[in-house]
């Protein structure tokens, strides 16, 4: 019986729902030092002097480290394949402080209270400098965020630190100016997004210790254990061979934990003191010095004919990297590649971009990774074009969307092998009853309802860069162990990969024991990011199982005294149809351990030259209270093509969860700074994420295509699903109010003031 495409429970579900101690913070050695960081109150400053002598006299305080104690090699904390496109622009502690909250001193004590006492008596004299906060003025500004000489860019991404330029990029397909000139209508619009925090429920946390071999062991809530190993080696200036990284259960990541945020501090403390050490960020620190989505400003020119044929889209994006360039050069590419490729009709598309340094918190990876911002801008521009042409926003998409079998010039020239975007549109319209109601109407209580639509795509792993490995072993007695190097961060990849293995080997889920990441024992995997686990690691699992199957057949044939090509394996037994004899899986398992010296195991790696996009249509119905400006999402519909749905429950919950994060981005979430660069909203009181009251009703369905290069026909799901709410809700609010809000989030104040100004006119 097949378990792929069913909704089996996650293998770890019952331990999670009964509150078992399976997370990093639950397993800290009792004698671990607690760590606290003294952080900069200034967005830009130099440390003139720092005196830790009094802090060191606080009882219980074991060490206080400053920039003078730290290695001097610059590195990046971005969890990416080496050589990382993100510049090497960080030190563990630096004399030059580049954003509020930059670490000034590492305090290690027996208790947190000891650390806080010490923090109070560290004397720091700062040379406070004027910060560069406005990213639209960063390029060639007289304030340089990275003036240091040992700044290093490993990849040619156009970095020029002397201009505050992290990277620059772009591509052109077709004759942009010519197509715009031929278009009946050309719109030019600017859209703004802000930084968003991932706000995963478990803050950044890590503990470290030296093991019996004297090696540095790092237990951490991370999406990228193998990158953590390399980055710590860079930062601490110790060989990778001296580091082991273990990932327990993770309390959510969403990309935040694709950067090495908390690991470095306990690691350097353990290296310098020999003691186990534990650091957990507070929620406040998770907000002030995390790895948020990049703030962007996007300029769109879109040209279309009167009949709704979109000829050309020209997109320029400016991205605020903040103080450090983590993921800056890579997120920006997706802004163009994964938005413009939604439109197969385009005769011309162009993308240009700049990523700049400022003195705000450094950005990072957040679910969607630039595609979210790009799709918001392009889909909003298409909605504005539809309104301008007096066309239904679904109809303009049906006329222009990418379809299966097309080439996608804006998407690295990849073929669109699997795509049901057209059927997703049909499905979403049907679910929403799109054609049964107008796009806006007024309720008896005076509230206005509006509806909007948007499409989205993403990738499935990073083509030719992401690599995944899986090892599957047959054990004594015939059960299997599946060793994985990818990080299950709650999404359930340990389970869905076991589902694939179970189908490949014709066995049940309970026959497969899964073990997640320990860099000493798991096969190499770049990590869980870029929507890669189902597609890329799944590919490795399928290959490894195929190899093991052959070995099982060979072993069974030997026991039966026949040639391997004379037998078959049905999951329970290897049998020979010619003579009717069979040997059970259990017998093969035992035999392989008992004197036969042929322990059965297979390890395979997988990488893909393409990154097949999953697609989606999202539709929002909003309720606008014209008196208060409050916008509520009353109904949201998502129709998704992620290829084969490997786990029906987990894919649904991924989609629902992504949509609610997208609703937060559209209406609530905004990283804000004061005029000196200090973060204003550093708690859940001020940085509001959706509660269940704001989430409304979300309805999701799937229209699976079959991706020929994917395991069991699967693509990806994790990131795609955050991309439609911002443009769909923006359009719904436009339909309801007649106002196009081109900056996120759309706040009640914005809406109420726009409506008030209407009545004044």
């Amino acid at each position, binding site marked *: 019986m097949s378990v792929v495409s069913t*909704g089996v*429970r*996650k293998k*770890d*579900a*019952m331990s*999670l*729902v*009964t*509150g*078992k*101690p*399976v*997370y990093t913070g*639950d397993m800290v050695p009792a004698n671990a030092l607690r760590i606290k960081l003294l952080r900069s109150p200034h967005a830009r400053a130099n440390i003139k002097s720092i005196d830790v002598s009094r802090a060191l006299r606080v009882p219980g305080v074991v060490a206080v480290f400053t920039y003078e104690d730290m290695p001097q090699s610059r590195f990046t904390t971005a969890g990416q394949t080496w050589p990382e496109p993100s510049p090497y622009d960080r030190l563990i502690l630096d004399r030059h402080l580049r954003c509020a909250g930059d670490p000034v001193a590492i305090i290690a004590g027996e208790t947190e209270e000891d650390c806080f006492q010490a923090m109070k008596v560290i004397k720091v004299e700062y040379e406070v400098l004027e910060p560069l906060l406005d990213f639209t003025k960063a390029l060639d500004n007289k304030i340089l965020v990275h003036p240091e000489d040992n700044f290093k860019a490993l990849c040619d991404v156009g970095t020029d630190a002397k201009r505050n330029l992290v990277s620059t990029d772009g591509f052109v397909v077709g004759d942009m100016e010519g197509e715009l000139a031929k278009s009946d209508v050309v719109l030019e619009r600017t859209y703004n997004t802000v930084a968003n925090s*991932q*706000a*995963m*429920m*478990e*803050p950044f946390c890590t503990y470290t210790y030296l093991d019996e071999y004297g090696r540095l062991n790092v237990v951490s809530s991370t999406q990228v254990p193998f990158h953590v190993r390399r980055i710590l080696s860079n930062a601490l200036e110790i060989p990778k061979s001296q580091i082991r990284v273990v990932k327990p*259960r*993770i*309390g*959510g990541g*969403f990309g935040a934990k694709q950067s090495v945020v908390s690991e470095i501090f306990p690691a350097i403390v353990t290296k310098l003191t020999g003691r186990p050490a534990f650091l957990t960020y*507070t*929620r*406040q620190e998770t907000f002030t010095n995390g790895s948020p989505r990049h703030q962007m400003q996007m300029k769109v020119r879109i040209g279309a004919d009167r009949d709704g044929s979109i000829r050309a889209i020209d997109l320029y994006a400016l991205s605020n990297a903040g103080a450090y360039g983590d993921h800056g050069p890579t997120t920006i590419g997706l802004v163009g590649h994964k938005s413009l490729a939604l439109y197969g009709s385009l005769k011309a598309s162009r993308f240009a971009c700049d990523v700049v340094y400022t003195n705000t918190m450094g950005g990072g990876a957040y679910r969607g990774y630039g595609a979210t911002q790009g799709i918001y801008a392009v889909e909003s521009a298409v909605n504005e074009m539809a309104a301008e042409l007096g066309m239904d926003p679904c109809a303009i998409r049906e006329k222009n969307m990418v379809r299966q079998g097309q080439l996608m010039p804006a998407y690295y020239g990849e073929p669109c092998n699997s795509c049901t975007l057209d059927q997703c549109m049909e499905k979403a319209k049907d679910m929403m009853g799109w054609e049964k109601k107008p796009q806006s109407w007024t309720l008896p209580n005076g509230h206005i309802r509006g509806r909007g639509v948007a499409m989205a795509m993403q990738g499935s792993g990073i083509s030719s860069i992401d690599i995944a490995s899986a090892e599957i072993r047959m054990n004594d007695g015939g059960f299997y162990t599946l060793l994985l190097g990818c990080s299950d*961060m*709650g*999404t*359930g990849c340990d389970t869905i990969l076991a589902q694939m293995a179970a189908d490949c080997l014709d066995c049940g889920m309970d026959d497969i024991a899964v073990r997640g990441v320990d860099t000493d024992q798991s096969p190499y995997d770049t990590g869980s990011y870029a929507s890669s686990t189902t597609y890329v690691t799944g590919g490795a699992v399928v290959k490894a199982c195929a190899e093991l199957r052959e070995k099982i057949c060979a072993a069974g044939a030997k026991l039966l005294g026949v040639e391997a090509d004379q037998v078959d394996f049905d999951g329970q037994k290897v049998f020979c149809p010619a003579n009717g004899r069979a040997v059970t899986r259990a017998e093969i398992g035992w035999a392989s351990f008992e004197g036969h010296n042929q322990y059965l195991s297979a390890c395979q790696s997988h990488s893909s030259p393409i990154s097949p996009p999953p697609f989606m249509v999202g539709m929002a119905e909003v309720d606008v209270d014209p008196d208060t400006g409050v916008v509520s999402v009353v109904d949201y519909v998502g129709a998704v093509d992620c290829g084969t749905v490997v*786990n029906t*429950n*987990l894919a*649904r*919950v991924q*989609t*629902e*969860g*992504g*949509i*609610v*994060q997208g609703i937060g981005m559209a209406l609530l979430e905004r990283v804000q700074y004061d005029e000196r660069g200090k973060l204003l909203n550093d*708690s*859940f*009181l001020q940085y509001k*994420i959706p*509660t*269940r*009251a704001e*989430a409304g*009703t*979300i309805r999701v369905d799937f229209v699976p295509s079959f991706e020929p290069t994917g395991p069991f026909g699967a693509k990806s799901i994790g990131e795609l699903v955050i991309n439609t709410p911002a443009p769909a809700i923006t359009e719904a609010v436009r339909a309801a109010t007649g106002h196009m809000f081109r900056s996120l989030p759309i706040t009640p104040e914005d809406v109420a003031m726009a409506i008030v100004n209407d009545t004044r006119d």
Partner: protein
Amino acid sequence: MTITVLLNGAKRTDEVQADTTLFDYLRSHGCLSVKCGCETSNCGLCTVHLDGKPVLSCSVPALRADGHTITTLEGLQEEAAEFGAFLADEGAEQCGYCSPGFIMSVLAMAGELKNPTVEDIQAYLAGNLCRCSGYQGQLRAIQKYLQAKGGAKR
């Protein structure tokens, strides 16, 4: 200062400081199901029962529990598994970090509200944040659980 509490059915007496939170007290006495997601009593992750009522343990001084009954998920394993099975069957536990606090609230709600509507459920649990699930699967699990227990409006 000394407090005496009934913690998950066992009477115990411990030394605490005046500013020790119930959260810190519980974590340091082996109740590791209790999680911290914020420090500002906004996330619901640290929800435990004080005399059967849900409280945020991060904002209750341990001293306040003196002479009272405290229950964490460690003390409600059967109930957690019973409701948790419904959550697991929706795949809605996801990362699981908010699950203990959320489940403490659900169990309190199940005892407190008779035949709750969707609105009642949303209002009762509004203080329990979840960043993974989008709440829909949690709602499906609650409805099925309450129905199985014989009393929920659809």
